[in-house]
């Protein structure tokens, strides 16, 4: 009885909308049989994106995108609203998962050579989606409208300001005027909540359409290169003979992986909660040291480590060239071997990228180039004197900002060389020269120290010797 009603309703909907048929046919489209766990990252990215959409919609129920009020609504969401802290955490770790999955998906597609003929545009739309994802990450961090966000906005404006001719205009476009103010936040809100999600939906649609049009790429076999003349026919035969319906033969792995990911994200959100809010978004608070969220920390490191004088070019043309090179990749190499076994350079490129980003990431997390403004004063046991030139020198070492960049023992900044045993490597004269004249990353102190002060400082540094056996 129930079954009969169900069938009648189903048939009616099918007849009047035609959708169940289309959806069913799409879901059961045939895919290569041996695409196993390697293929889950794309759908995991989509899943992470949907988490972002829903948690984002929920957050906007309380968030007010006003320069004056956003900060207090964030406090309300985090501290007062039921599930608020969890929801912000979900949105943060969801964003992290999305960036991570985009990266894994891209690496897998690259290693398997799946970007080659006829899937060039699958790759190109994917590169654009990667860009959109990073823009979402950056604008999302700015919607966490605290002092760090305000500073980061200025940093972003300074970067686009290096673009020739239209730089200043772009910088003002980002800030919504020539200073930070009431117009700044609404801009990022519109980009983050309307423009970018709309673009992502559109391009995900296109991306998936292309997947259906060209079929899921079969796992590569070494010694079986792509030849645009024969590839389509071979693929058709493979699918005809060995194809399996995507749903449910393949889709179950995607579902399992996505659910594991959701559990991981929810667990992280539950344990760690929302990212901390900084000071209020007041551009006149000077004690700020803006840092991007972890997924852009490696780029922060690049900006710090660029050789002086090259910033102007690398800041503008670097990301542009990387983007263009990524988009151009499948058009330049659209045939030949797909298997990573026959493409050692592809494997090397992925490994190098991973090592590079990981190294920069660690560097960014430590940021040794940032002076330490909270360095502990040197303890008397470290100084080793309570009066005389060594003692005075030690006071000067702190007062003149040396300690902000140079460590003694474990105290102090890491911007410049460690001074614990400096007397082992520099003579008195060498020290005086260096302090007076400075260097690329060190100010010249000649006009900043009296001769007696210089002598005391050098006396203190001369007392920094390794223990003699």
């Amino acid at each position, binding site marked *: 009885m129930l079954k009969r009603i169900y069938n009648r309703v189903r048939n009616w909907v099918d007849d009047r909308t035609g959708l169940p048929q289309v959806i069913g046919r799409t879901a059961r489209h045939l895919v290569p049989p041996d695409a196993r766990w390697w293929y889950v990252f794309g759908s995991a990215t989509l899943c992470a994106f949907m988490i972002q959409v829903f948690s984002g919609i929920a957050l906007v129920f309380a968030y007010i995108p006003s320069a004056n009020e956003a900060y207090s609504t964030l406090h309300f969401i985090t501290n007062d609203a039921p599930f608020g802290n969890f929801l912000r955490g979900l949105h943060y770790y969801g964003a992290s998962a999305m960036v991570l999955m985009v990266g894994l998906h891209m690496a897998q597609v690259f290693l398997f050579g799946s970007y080659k003929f006829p899937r060039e545009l699958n790759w190109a739309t994917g590169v654009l989606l990667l860009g959109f994802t990073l823009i979402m990450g950056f604008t999302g961090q700015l919607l966490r409208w605290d002092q760090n966000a305000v500073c980061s906005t200025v940093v972003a404006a300074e970067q686009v300001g290096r673009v020739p001719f239209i730089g200043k205009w772009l910088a003002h476009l980002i800030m919504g005027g*020539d200073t930070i103010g009431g117009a700044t936040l609404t801009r990022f809100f519109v980009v983050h909540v309307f423009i970018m999600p709309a673009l992502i939906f559109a391009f995900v649609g296109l991306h998936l359409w292309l997947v259906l049009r060209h079929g899921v790429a079969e796992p590569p076999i070494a010694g079986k290169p792509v030849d645009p003349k024969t590839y389509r026919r071979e693929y058709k035969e493979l699918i005809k003979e060995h194809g399996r319906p995507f749903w449910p033969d393949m889709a179950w792995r995607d579902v399992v992986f996505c659910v594991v990911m959701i559990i991981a994200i929810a667990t992280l959100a539950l344990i760690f909660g929302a990212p901390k809010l900084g000071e209020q978004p007041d551009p006149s608070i000077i004690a700020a040291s803006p840092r991007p969220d972890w997924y852009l920390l490696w780029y922060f490191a690049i900006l*710090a480590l660029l050789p002086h004088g090259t910033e102007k070019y690398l800041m503008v043309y670097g990301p542009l060239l990387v983007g263009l090179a990524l988009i151009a990749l499948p058009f330049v190499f659209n045939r030949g071997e797909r298997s990573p076994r026959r493409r050692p350079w592809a494997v090397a490129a992925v490994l190098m990228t991973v090592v590079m980003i990981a190294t920069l990431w660690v560097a960014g997390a430590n940021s040794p180039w940032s002076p330490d403004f909270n360095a502990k004063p040197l303890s008397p046991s470290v100084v080793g004197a309570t009066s005389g030139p060594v003692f005075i020198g030690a006071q000067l070492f702190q007062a*003149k900002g040396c300690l902000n960049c140079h460590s003694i023992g474990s105290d102090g900044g890491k911007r410049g060389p460690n001074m614990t045993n400096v007397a082992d490597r520099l003579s008195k004269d060498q020290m005086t020269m260096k302090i007076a004249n*400075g260097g690329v990353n060190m100010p010249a102190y000649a006009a900043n120290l009296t001769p007696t002060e210089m002598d005391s400082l050098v006396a203190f540094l001369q007392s920094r010797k390794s223990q003699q056996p």
Partner: protein
Amino acid sequence: MNEPDTEDSTNGCPSSPAELSRRKFLARLSLTMGAVGGLILAVPMLGFILAPLFKHKQEVWRTVGKVESFKIGETTAVKYEDASPLPWAGVTAHSAAWLRRVDSTTFIAFSINCTHLGCPVRWLATANLFMCPCHGGVYYQDGTVAAGPPPSPLPRYTVRVKDGDVQIQTAPIPITKK
């Protein structure tokens, strides 16, 4: 995989030359009208979004304190309000500058934004240096670059003394070009 669309664009509908030319005309008419409609909507919308960027704000003088509240040779942070903040700007309408009193009548106001990437630089009074917390840019007390990545000296704001008050002229956040 679909075969490329080989059908006639009119779906095989039989057509006389007169009908063909009429069809061409109608297609062109629709596209042109569509473009006109789009333009009518797009111009005011883009104008609304972009106009604030081209509006030249009237810069104003903001008093940051009495002359005698600043000691000669010292550099202090001063806060003031932007030229014409939006009503909902809240604390984002604040600006800051490093104000140095050179002698009894001369003041210099430095931007707090490092010329490298705009992070707020800090003044180390005992060291007579500005230091940037982001990438370690350092400037001397006159704003010239002492060390690190900044490509140019700290920009200055216009400052004057009027009726015993020190006044700074509001200005855009300096954007480094080089």
